Structure formats: C-alpha cells, structure tokens
C-alpha cells in the first residue's frame, strides 16, 4: 500500500503534474507520525509513511498550501474526503490546484506509551464506513440519559479542558482568519477563564458555529490532549439537522425558499 502510494506520487512529481505532496511522515518512535509536505521522490522514499498512525486529516493544510501556489497531491482517507469537499465549497481551497488520491483506511490508532498499547481513535469506533457501529449510537446513549446525568457527563468531560484550542485549530470547518475567541477585544477571548462554565460555553458555541458545516471527521476528538469526546456534540447537531432537513441539506446550501426551523420541527413563536 505504502509503496504503491509513494510510486504514484513520485510519478506525479516526476511528470511535473504536481510540485509537492501532502502526506504523512514517520517519526522517531514509530507511532509519532506527523503530517508533512514532500517535494521530491527522495524525501518520499525516506520519510513517507502510511499506516494505522496516520489519523491526521490533511485537508485543512490545503488552506495554507493553496495560498503558496503550484499544484499539490493530497492523500485522503474516506473520512477526510468530506472535509476537502467542504473547503472547496466554502472557497477556502481551490480544487484545480489539488490532485486527490483516495486511500482506504481500516481505522486509525494512537499509541498509549503508559499502557504500551494502541488505542483505536474514538471516531473510528463509530465510523460510517465500518458496519458494526451505527453512526448515532454514541449520541443515542447520551440522549438516553436524564438531563441531570447528561449535565454531569458533560461537566465531567469538559472540566478537563485546558483550552489549548487544538480542537478548533484542527477542525476543517473552523477556518476563520481570526477566531472570535482569539480576539481580546471581543470580550469572549477567555484566555483566562474566570470559571469553568466559560470552558463549557466555548465548546457549545463552537459546536453551533460549525453546525451544518461539521463534516463529522472526528479530528476534534482525535487531537484533544485531554481525550474529550467533543465530536459527540457535533454529532448530536448533525443528527438533529438530518432529522429536520434531510440527509444532504447542510446549512451552507442556503436559499431564500428554505423553510424556517419551526416549519419543519414544529413549535417556535411565529406571528
């Protein structure tokens, strides 16, 4: 697999069809794989890797890479593809500059050096591409809780947040040039949280900011150093949106004849 991938993109480089390749690069310990940009077949030969530790979704790097010009080859796993399409649709990247190579995936893992074992990434445990787990099972488990249990569940999870913003920075739907949470003048920057409720609010606000645009790639949960299952918030919203608007109607496909939410799901206070 890996060798085939190297051969394919090496040929693209040699033919001048692309001038660089977005892929994954091997680390010092086997499991510490990083996304990387390759410029020559030699670099690919020496450093390119594709294995179970290549969980990182490369799509978002295209936002920066496309600005540099030229043509790029990029590898996309099945769950990375929607992120790519979203970025094209939102005009954050240019499809013309990208040569997409789809690669199969049988689940991505991270290594736990303490337990000395691999852990399947949480998103893969409910991957749409695997048949064992229905997409919304994890969400349904949470919905089945009482409100008090649910509150306690999220308080427990979110209380561990260190506000590193890795979730936001990895998210392909979060591509604002300057995030409102980074703007000290916005009044919500929250570099210092006065209380833990602010942390919770950050995640809820972020979930709503990406509602309808979240592509369910699960990067937010994968990158979280505190192992917070963030994408469950997003999956809940995806589920509600699908119920209300149907499978493919995302909030970015906006037109004037769209119904009001209250027309679709009832309730609301309409004049």
């Amino acid at each position, binding site marked *: 697999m890996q060798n085939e991938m190297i051969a394919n993109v090496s040929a693209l480089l040699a033919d001048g069809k692309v001038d660089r390749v977005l892929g994954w690069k091997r*680390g*010092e*310990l086997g*499991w*510490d*794989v*990083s*996304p*990387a*940009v390759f410029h020559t077949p030699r670099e690919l030969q020496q450093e390119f890797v594709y294995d179970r530790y290549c969980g*990182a979704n490369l799509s978002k*790097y295209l936002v920066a890479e496309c600005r540099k010009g030229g043509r790029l080859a990029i590898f996309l796993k099945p769950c990375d593809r929607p992120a790519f399409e979203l970025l094209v649709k939102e005009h954050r990247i240019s499809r013309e500059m990208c040569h997409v190579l789809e690669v199969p995936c049988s689940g991505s893992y991270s290594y*736990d*050096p*303490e*337990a*000395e074992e691999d852990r399947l990434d949480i998103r893969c445990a409910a991957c749409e591409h695997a048949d064992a787990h229905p997409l919304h099972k994890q969400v349904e488990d949470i919905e089945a809780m009482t409100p008090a249990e649910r509150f306690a569940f999220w308080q427990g999870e979110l209380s561990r947040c*260190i506000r*590193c*913003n*890795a979730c936001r*920075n*990895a998210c392909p739907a979060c591509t604002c040039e*300057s995030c409102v949470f*980074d703007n*000290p003048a916005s009044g919500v*920057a929250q*570099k*210092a*949280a*006065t209380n833990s409720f602010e942390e919770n609010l950050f995640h809820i606000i972020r979930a709503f900011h990406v509602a309808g645009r979240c592509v369910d790639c699960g990067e937010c949960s*994968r*990158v*979280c*150093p*505190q*192992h917070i299952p963030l994408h469950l918030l997003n999956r809940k919203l995806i589920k509600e949106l699908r119920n209300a608007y149907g499978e493919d109607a995302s909030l970015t496909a906006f037109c004037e004849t769209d119904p009001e939410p209250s027309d679709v799901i009832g309730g609301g206070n309409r004049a």
Partner: protein
Amino acid sequence: MRKLSLVSLPLLFAAIDERMPLYLPVRSDGRVEFTRWMGGQDIAFTGNTDRSAKDFFFPQSEELMRLRREGKRVEVLDTRREAEDFVLFGVRPCDVKSFDILDSVFLAGPVDSYYATRREHGVVVSLACHLPSSTCFCSAFGIDAADPAGDVAAWLAGDTLYLRANTEKGERWLAAYDTLTEPSDENAIADLQQIRDKVSALPLAKLNTAVFGGDKLATFFDLPDWESLSVACLGCGTCTFVCPTCQCYDIVDFYTGHGIQRLRCWDSCMYSDFTKMAHGNPRTTQRERFRQRFMHKLVYYPAEHEGVFGCVGCGRCLRKCPQALHIAKVMRTLGKED
C-alpha cells in the same frame, strides 16, 4: 534515610493528609493526574502524570487582584489568601528538575510573590523512576532518574519504600512521621545502577544535546529545516501547556460591571496573540512561533542560565502534540550531521 513496608503506606498517606493536603499521581479513566489522596485510589508509581506538577505552583489561571470603583474612588482589593501547606508526593525526577527552571524565572528578582508563597508552602517528595517510559529522555539532559532532587526523595524497591531528606525542610517534614517509619542504611536501595541502565537504554536517551547551547543562536536560527519541522503545527499550544518548564503568562482584566478582576493565565509562544505589542505579535508566522519554543528550550534559556537547558526530557510534548511534533524530532533534525 528512613524506610517503611508498602503495606503500611496507606497509614503514612493518611497521617500526611491529616496534617496537610497530600496530592499524588492517581490513575483514573486511563489518565494519571495529581489528585488529593483519599485512600482506595489507584496510585501510579510508574510512568508520569498527563499534566505536569507545575499547576501547583503556577496554576493555569489565578486571580491577582480586584479593583473596585465607587464614584471617583478606585479601591485596590488584595484577594490573596493565606496559602496552606501541602505535599506533592511522587514527583518524577524530570518534573522535580523543572521546578528549578521555574524558580530561576519566578524567584529571580523581582520575586513573584504568588509563586514564591506556593513554593514555600509545598513539600516536594520525589520518586525515583524504576520503570521509565519509552517517551522519557531525562538522561539526555543530565537528570539522574535514580537519585532525584526534591525536599525528600523516595525509592520503591521490592516491598519497601525508602525515604531520604534532601533539604532542611524535608528533614523536618520527614521527622514528623518517625513513628511510622524505621531507620535505614544509606546504601539499602539495592540497585540504583539498574535504574540508570534502564533509562540509558530508552530509545531517546541518546539525543545529542552537545550541539545545542547558549552560543548557538546563529547556528540554528536561519536553518531552512524550521519550515518542514513546523509545517504541520496547529499553533494549539498544547505542548506549552503540558510542558513542566513553560513559564509564560498573560495578564487579563475582566470588567465586572463595577470594577476589574485581574487574572493571570498561562500563555504560549505558539499563539498568534503572544507578546502582542502596539504593532502586533513580532512573530508573524507559525514557523517563527514554533522556532521560538524550541530555541527557547535549547538556546535562549541556556544562554541566560549557565548552559542549563530549558527541557527536562519528560516527553509530554511528544505524547500530547496532536500532530506528534516534538522536541526530540527537532533535536534530531537540527543536530543531524550531513
């Protein structure tokens, strides 16, 4: 040197916690964090904590003071509370060393009184690493995992815990539990060499530090490698938050409606709003911010501290960076001989 049998350890912990809060590494839900002792916990004697112990002296967010306005008067309210004594038990050798690095910043004049108070009230009991992790490289930075610093050093050997006071404060503290421990011979711990052998056989133990140092600014600053090293960096700052030696902070004012609440919080050189001045952040690209982090550890800090490096090889940036960019990769890449 004192010793006690492991079966009596809960008694010792209970006695300690009765006098002052005791925090130790507790495993729960697959994570290890310093947690208040309460008996019946799964105490982690091997590996290290997910977050470092710096939080106890330099918390992520703390209130510095409040200002209250009444009419034309502004009143400054000192919100500091008298700190209580506490014990950190089981701090690993790398993390103990990190306190020296934090001290060199916060206790050098002008002394940071918030930090200093907590340091004075904290007793640090370190624990030698008889089972280091594959991500540890303390030895590359000259730290002896078999003989840690701290007010009191501890060793686990067989079914015995050995305790040795390193400082006067540690001696006083340890003496308070003399009824629970027995005297022991200084050379009782069988095999310090065994620990040292294990540590030096770790995959990253041979990282070359000799090529770095305070006089290497010109050698590394403009290397093209920074581009490929940093291209995947998300600028999330996770590496700096989990790093036991990262010491940067920001001071933020919150308007409360009738006054100001002034907080201090961790900051990170990986952030776009770090050291923001009138013209913005002097480091305009993530490449420059990434370079700052590693140059600080390997060049700038040693330049100001007699060659001591700003990294203790705890391996947290290695474990926690979402994209697996870490100091060992940086050192291998920059230090390569081609």
